[in-house]
């Protein structure tokens, strides 16, 4: 199994069909792309043809939404085989999915569902991650999800649960800045507590995204520009974790590519400022 920590890729975007032509006909200032695994688990045609061209030109990572790593249903070996086949084609720098479940009893609810943070759930997830990593022959990267509920049976915090999964299963983490912000607002915890609670050496990627404010809670819709509060938290995360591959994640209301590149440049500026401050402090 390849256990080397993935390289720093710079600043990337999620590959969306609306931008295919512009990406391939120009040279936008994007260092790498994240592709949605399920969108390319198909037989053929234009999407795979475009994907091949993107893979020739850019570093690519694969990001899934249906691994359902925390489900108590049996592992879906057909899905894992398709994922492995796609990985052989894409040769991604890493493969990520979410620390959640998506359904049981053969049903997929197409949502990233929350877990009660119990020892029992932890043991189950750790075991499943190990099985999947053995099958794929590489370490998985798992992302913290946004959640809207908490459970009476939880025995630890989310960050304790996430950290334990990463340490015990020996996997990487995709730290979603927006999801931590959304969950902290919904559940009233401190983003700093979350940040400090995550092992630095496990984080290989950041997601930065927008969200929607409802009356008294925030929904992680990924359909808005990144707001100032999330940018502030990104700055704190870069300060804490150092140089981490960063991606702007927009799933809906897809704007023109230039708008996302602008957001990406803002992330670059923040990372550069944090780096300069750190170097100046070290030199003092």
């Amino acid at each position, binding site marked *: 199994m390849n256990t080397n920590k993935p390289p720093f890729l710079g600043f990337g975007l999620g590959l969306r069909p609306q931008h295919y032509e512009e990406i391939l006909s120009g040279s936008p200032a994007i260092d790498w792309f994240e592709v949605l695994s399920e969108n390319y688990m198909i037989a053929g*045609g234009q999407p795979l043809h475009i994907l091949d061209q993107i893979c020739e030109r850019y570093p690519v990572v694969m990001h899934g939404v249906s691994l359902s790593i925390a489900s108590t249903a049996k592992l879906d070996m057909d899905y894992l085989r398709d994922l492995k086949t796609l990985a052989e084609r894409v040769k991604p720098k890493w493969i990520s999915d979410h620390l959640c479940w998506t359904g049981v009893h053969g049903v997929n609810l*197409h949502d990233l569902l929350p877990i009660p943070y119990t020892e029992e759930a932890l043991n189950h997830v750790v075991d499943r991650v190990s099985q999947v990593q053995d099958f794929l022959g590489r370490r998985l990267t798992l992302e913290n999800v946004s959640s809207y509920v*908490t459970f009476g049976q939880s025995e630890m915090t989310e960050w304790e649960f996430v950290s334990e999964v990463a340490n015990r299963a020996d996997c990487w983490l995709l730290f979603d800045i927006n999801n931590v912000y959304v969950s902290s607002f919904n559940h*009233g915890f401190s983003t700093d507590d979350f940040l400090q609670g995550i092992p630095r050496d496990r984080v290989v990627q950041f997601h930065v995204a927008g969200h929607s404010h409802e009356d*008294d809670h925030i929904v992680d819709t990924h359909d808005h520009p990144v707001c100032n509060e999330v940018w502030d938290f990104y700055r704190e995360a870069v300060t804490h974790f150092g140089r981490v591959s960063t991606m702007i994640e927009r799933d809906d209301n897809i704007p023109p590519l230039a708008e996302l590149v602008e957001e990406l440049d803002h992330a670059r500026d923040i990372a550069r400022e944090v780096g300069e401050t750190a170097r100046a402090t070290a030199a003092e």
Partner: protein
Amino acid sequence: MSSFKDFQDSFQRGILERDDTILGDVKDSATESRSVLFGVYRHAYVARLAEILGDDYERVHAYLGDEGFARLVKAYIDANPSDRRSARWFGRHMPTFARETAPFSNHREVSEIAALEKALSDAFDGPNAEPLSIDQLAALAVDDWPRLVFQPHPTTIRLTFTTNAADIWSALKDETAPPKLERFPEPQALLVWRQDFMAHFRPFGAEESMMWNEAARGVRFGVLCEMVAMFGGEDEAELRAATYLRGWIDLGLLTGFKLE
């Protein structure tokens, strides 16, 4: 059964069956009740699946209007919980569902528009195969032609319509008023396929449709010519068969041949 298993079972029933047992595990937040918070998941489930169906069946939506489409979508979601990892396949039962479920079953064109949309999607990301070129056939000896058996492109899908659903689809795609509904005295065939990364469709006349079906079943070209002669008359039957074949090659409907 473990409690984590019970929890997931209860959570899923809370979404699919609106069973409130799961609320016993959920905590109120400082500002919202547990039912409002869990309601985010209930709402997201229906909204996400409705969005998937809206993307997959854009013309059915345009034809039925918002209200009619919302009724179809709700009925479909209730009857067909998703059983695939990729959302790409969630709506795959829609043509059958609309054909068999009242009141949509009383409007056959709804199911046929859905069938065309589904076939175009299936052709769009169906398997790749190199199309057969006319040069490959031109190299054959004349005596070999009757022994030719053709291989259809794997993205070809033949549909049979009882209404002018294809014309309605085209008008809706062009954002023009759809033509008046027309019911055909005899079902008409339509072929969907992919060429140059784009999904296309074209109507098939009765004779060409018959020849395509037989060719796709592996019937030799010599026999296909005889069948065309029986179907439409002997006069220039071979020429008609060869013309159909040439059209199929030009459109990329065939991928290969063998001699039998």
